[in-house]
């Protein structure tokens, strides 16, 4: 093969390589275009399927708190609220835990320990969500009901955030189970980002007299900031769209409650719950429109993430 290639005239060689390049370009373009087409198709279908409720309710769909399939009155606000709140609660718990664990695994742990722990973390990421839901029902919910929620009520009962009966299920419980589900992503992607930081960066910091921790916290982590943020948004995306585990522990109550221990509802959960038996045209359309809202919500949050990344990369040394 090698000898044969050596005989071939340079002009022909260039030509054939160009052909291959063009072919590869065409193919990869096709794949990329397919993904965009698929996204557009999803939006188009959601837009089409939600025509009846879009025409009837307009933008009040986004601000109404009513959800009554009997009288055909639908509003998305309780579901938007529940989706955003549980995802934020999840990140509040999983970001410090996940990034902390990633720092330990990439910087401080012995390589052997780090590798085996990372394997376990990646295993956790592959567990189906319904398993997390079951785990939550049988362990987390009783714990929350008997200890955590009464404790929170006793300690912070003066604030509206922790009032109401302790059912065990609710926003906080859903947030915790979402945190458990998102942190494998945060750990493994953050760890990759931290490991990718050039060795010279650490050496330079140490040479200047920094301690191990100072080098990690002030040099390595800021350097890997982009990757760590990416991991957080990956986690957020999972939290926003998570369905089974959430519907099993959130209490499925389509109302807005200020209290974190009250039952609530999320967009994905209500679609999963009600779609199969939504026989009325308006009901089905309202659920499709919720899908559209979730899509838009994800886009907005991802957009904000992009803006945040651009803003923070401008200053500092993080440009990789």
């Amino acid at each position, binding site marked *: 093969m090698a000898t044969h290639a050596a005989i071939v005239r340079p002009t022909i060689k260039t030509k054939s390589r160009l052909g291959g390049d063009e072919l590869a370009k065409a193919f990869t373009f096709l794949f990329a275009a397919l993904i965009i087409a698929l996204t557009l198709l999803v939006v188009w279908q959601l837009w089409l399927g939600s025509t009846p409720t879009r025409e009837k309710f307009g933008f009040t769909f986004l601000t109404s708190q009513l959800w009554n399939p009997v009288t055909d009155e639908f509003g998305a606000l309780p579901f938007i609220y529940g989706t955003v709140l549980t995802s934020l609660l999840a990140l509040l718990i999983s970001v410090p835990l996940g990034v902390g664990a990633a720092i330990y695994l990439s910087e401080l742990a012995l390589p052997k320990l780090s590798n085996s722990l990372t394997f376990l973390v990646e295993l956790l990421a592959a567990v189906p969500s319904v398993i997390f839901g079951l785990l939550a029902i049988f362990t987390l919910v*009783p714990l929350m009901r008997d200890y955590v929620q009464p404790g929170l009520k006793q300690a912070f009962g003066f604030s509206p955030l922790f009032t109401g009966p302790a059912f065990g299920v609710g926003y906080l419980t859903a947030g915790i189970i979402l945190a458990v589900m998102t942190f494998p992503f945060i750990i493994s992607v953050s760890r990759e980002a931290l490991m990718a930081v050039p060795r010279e960066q650490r050496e330079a910091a140490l040479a200047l007299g920094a301690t191990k921790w100072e080098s990690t916290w002030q040099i390595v982590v800021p350097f890997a900031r982009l990757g760590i943020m990416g991991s957080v948004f990956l986690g957020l995306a999972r939290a926003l769209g998570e369905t089974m585990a959430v519907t099993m522990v959130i209490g499925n109550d389509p109302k807005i409650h200020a209290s974190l221990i009250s039952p609530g509802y999320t967009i994905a959960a209500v679609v999963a719950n009600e779609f199969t038996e939504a026989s009325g045209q308006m009901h089905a359309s309202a659920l499709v429109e919720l899908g559209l809202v979730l899509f838009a919500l994800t886009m907005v949050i991802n957009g904000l993430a992009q803006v945040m990344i651009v803003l923070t990369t401008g200053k500092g040394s993080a440009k990789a």
Partner: protein
Amino acid sequence: MKTIHFTGFLALTALCAASASAQSLTAAGATFPAPIYQKWFGEFKTKTGVQVNYQDIGSGAGIKQLTEGTVDFGASDVPMTDEQLSKLKVKALHFPSVLGAVVMTYNIPGVTGSLTFTPEAIAGIYLGTITKWNDPKIAGANAGVKLPANDIVVVHRSDGSGTSFVFTDYLSKVSPDWKSKVGAAAAVSWPVGLGGKGSDGVAGTVKQTPNSIGYVELLFAVNNKMSFGNVKNASGEVITPSVASVTEAAAAMKEMPADFRVSITNSPGKKAYPISTFTYLLIPSQIQDAAKRKAITDFLTWMLKDGQKEAAGLSYAPLPKAVADKELKQIATIK
């Protein structure tokens, strides 16, 4: 579930290839009667070689598939509305197949044995007007039982379901307040309570939450050995839900409409359990393919005669004889 369907599909393809005379039918709909349907279809296949591939995707989805013509027949816990019927290309006939019931299940620490619920108590609990277990409206029907002064944790289905339809249909009949504030549907706007997904979701929440009450199908409560309450019926009798008292609810209906679309909740019968329901097969009234038509009518005839004997074994109530006879006459109208 998926694997079962898949193997069913494989068997089906193999069958089609093996003999041209062998028939295969597809059906989809209600989840509640799925266990008995699977059993019936299995036996029917060994008897006649006709394979029925049934997908338990929910009543609403079953009706949708029937309307789109993607299945040979549908199944639903709730009779079709006039609006739904008007959308069909071919008129569908309702064939009640078996009866089911919805029972009140509860978990009150310290209370063993069956409680009795009046219609007012059930409606009050689900409307949120009765909030404590020792409320006189509950305690009044349970003399001798020491009920705690704890808050009632109300549990309902979060997914749309035939079970919720039957339950809310019953509440609409016994409580004017319920009828005006909430109404009857597969999914409603619940005034109070937690939502559990599916029967197992409700059952799990009730089992785990002290002082809770929920509703599930009789079959589900029996299979899972859950405690459930008696209910005072329309003639004031306290009735334990059972296969016999559910069949009685259908038998006691004075007038059975010609199309069988009737709610049998709050039945007037003296021995009738009041939260009972038919579940239906939805059969097109015109079937072009003669072999398919024969397979379907054969199945219906077999189901209404021999099939009924197997219902009680799976905790479904068999149809009263008068209803089954009336349905046998309806079979002849399938053209």
